[in-house]
């Protein structure tokens, strides 16, 4: 009887044996295949998909002192491209309307310029450098990135009926409220020749502007 049971178990074991073995083989196969072919997460890291904030568009408003023609409100549009984190190149477009010269006011005679000629419009191609990048600590926990920059460039001023080659240089302070929003305070000199009063002279036209910019 005992032998009978033993025989039964043995035969069962024999029958089951290969199955158990097969199962463990299968498991081993699975492990092997897992080693050979891992489940690769296809995460492509493409630098081009990273949102690059290399451009800035800013609207500036302030005052322009037009030599001999008084101090007038000025509106300026700026487009900048950051070549590196500190070097930027840009285009400025500006518009102001010249006032009257002291001569025109005192003599109340014939105006020197027609209304159209009083439009002071300029463009400039500039290059700038964040010479003092820094941080402003508003409170213990709130800090903003800032930059003091120098910039300059060449362009043209259309004023008093003629185009005038214009050189400009200046400095400013950029305050980044967000990575995409900044406020800029800018002081600049626009230098160009004028021959309106008979003799050719070089004029210095200082501008002071404050503006809001979007970085994108």
């Amino acid at each position: 009887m005992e032998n009978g049971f033993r025989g039964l178990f043995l035969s069962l074991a024999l029958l089951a044996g290969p199955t158990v073995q097969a199962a463990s083989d299968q498991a081993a196969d699975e492990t092997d295949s897992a080693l050979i072919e891992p489940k690769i997460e296809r995460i492509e890291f493409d630098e081009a998909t990273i949102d690059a904030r290399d451009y800035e568009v800013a609207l500036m408003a302030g005052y322009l002192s037009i030599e001999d023609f008084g101090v007038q409100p000025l509106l300026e549009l700026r487009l900048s491209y950051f070549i590196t984190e500190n070097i930027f190149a840009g285009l400025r477009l500006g518009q102001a309307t010249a006032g009257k010269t002291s001569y025109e006011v005192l003599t109340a005679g014939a105006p020197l310029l027609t209304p159209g000629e009083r439009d002071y419009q300029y463009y400039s191609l500039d290059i700038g450098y964040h010479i003092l990048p820094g941080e402003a600590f508003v409170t213990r926990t709130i800090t903003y990135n800032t930059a003091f920059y120098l910039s300059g460039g060449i362009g043209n001023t259309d004023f008093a009926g003629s185009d005038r080659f214009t050189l400009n240089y200046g400095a400013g302070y950029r305050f980044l409220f967000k990575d995409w929003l900044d406020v800029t305070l800018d002081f600049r000199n626009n230098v160009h020749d004028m021959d309106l009063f008979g003799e050719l002279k070089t004029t210095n036209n200082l501008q002071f502007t404050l503006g809001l910019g979007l970085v994108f």
Partner: protein
Amino acid sequence: MADCASRLWLGLLAGLLLYSAAAHAQEPEAWLTVAEPYIDLHTGPGDGYPVFNVIERGHRLRVLDRRADWFRISDERGRVGWVPRSELIKTRLANGEPVQFASLDQQAFIGRRWELGVSGGRLKGAPVVSLYGGYAFTENLSAELTLEHSVGTVSSSKLLRLGLLMQPFPEWNYSPFFKLEGGAISVRPNATLIEPHNKDNTLASVGIGFKTWLARRFVFRFEVDELVIFSANKDQDDNEEITEWKMGFAVFF
């Protein structure tokens, strides 16, 4: 003027709102794992900004955005800081592969597609400001569109030129180029002179110059052009030949 200004401000504000909405919509999801002992986190985009934290080996970060070669990143604990490209290459993707970055070297310049530049110089003795855009078909051949403004004492000229530029040795450090252009010139006399009418003429030009890669996206360029301005009067043979030189900087994409 005031009306124009307020409209501009309104436009800018509307753009700002739209832009901030768009900025929230984009969420890059790829997590990178630090593969070297640590990565420094700076408070701003630049070497001068202090290091306020580090992310250690095995910890993860994700890139939020970038400014030039600096990347604003966030780690698993939500700390946000800036790392330069040279630090970010010390990370790996979730599958263990190193992160690949496009390198901005001379080779990148040779293989560029778009180029945008500004330059200054002299056109027939008068100062000239120039803005140009170029598209490269191959390493050797590109098309360029140039806008120029030259301001002299008696008149100012606006020029538009379109042409082909041939660069036979793009791999040279100072790579020479030759160009052929056609276009138009509009001359505006200064108001103090009697002749009040603008003169428009067509022109053709040949040029020679060189480009040299400086750093990253920066290129320096110098050229001398010979322009022929065709006479508007077909009966007269009074074509004008003028020389121009200019130098400037360009960025490429």
